[in-house]
């Protein structure tokens, strides 16, 4: 299967509580907490779409949208 291509980091700032789990565990250090303690994708170009941030987020506040997933789900 081809490597998924990142479209965007969909971040729900209302749900994000700034716990820092996604930032800490991102293998490519893509994520950071901004001055309001909400996560932002500081270096999206480095994202490898591993989705560990999405899977480990306690608040369901971050979603990795790839080119593939923007097509309607089968």
């Amino acid at each position: 299967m081809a490597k998924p291509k990142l479209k965007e980091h969909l971040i729900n700032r209302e749900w994000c509580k700034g716990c820092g789990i996604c930032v800490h565990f991102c293998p490519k250090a893509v994520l950071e907490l901004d001055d309001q303690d909400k996560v932002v994708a500081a270096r999206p170009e480095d994202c490898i779409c591993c989705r560990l941030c999405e899977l480990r987020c306690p608040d369901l506040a971050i979603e990795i949208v790839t080119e593939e997933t923007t097509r309607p789900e089968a």
Partner: protein
Amino acid sequence: MAIKDYIRERFFPHMWCPGCGHGIVMNSMLHAVEKLGFSKNEIVMVSGIGCSSRISGYVDFHTLHTIHGRALAFATGVKLGLPELNVIVPMGDGDALAIGGNHFIHAARRNIDITAIVMNNRVYGMTGGQFSPLSGYGTKATTAPLGNIDHGFDVAQLATAAGASFVARSTTYHVQQLSDIIRKAILHEGFSVVEVLTQCPTYFGRKNKMGDAAEMMEWFKDNTTSIGSKAKKENDALIERGIFVQKNIPEYCEEYDKIIAHAMEGS
């Protein structure tokens, strides 16, 4: 995010603290449910009292938020009432194993087809950080300010001895394993127990100087290992993760259906 189909969005953001492991368990569990492809109308979630048990309010299934320690008793009634339902019971360590210990043992003994998810954060979080039966010797809590003298026990061994036919353990660090285990636990026909080591950074973590949520998850990574691994043989203190028991034995509702058939042919 497809798992958003399975939540009651109007009640988000949820009430758990920043970094609470229960949110991760919910996340993994919803991924498991999504993979299973059941209709939401076929799922009943029964929980007790505590931070863990609040999960039922947030998910879009038939949900039953009961009283402290008694979730499995309610769930037994639901399952016997309508055995076709998939009954999932998330509970905290205190809820399932302190006040609920008796019901835990007997649900396992009956091998009734219910999936128990014990979210073990080693503390009573909702009430402000008292120790639980699984806190462990020497830990600090609001009711053990001078150090806990209670020892815990091995939930997997207890479940196994009581008769559970599916027993597994994972952690909130190991999300992919956790989701896979939950999926298998739900599919399993019989009493399934999944113990999840999860973090309470606000109370257990803070009182026992274990760092923030991410650091507590690192602790899960460093202090657990796969069942029977070389690392375990070298260091017995490591906690094993994986599926301990998975066996096919008579399930309670099916056995009772036989009783009904037997009774009805006689009359």
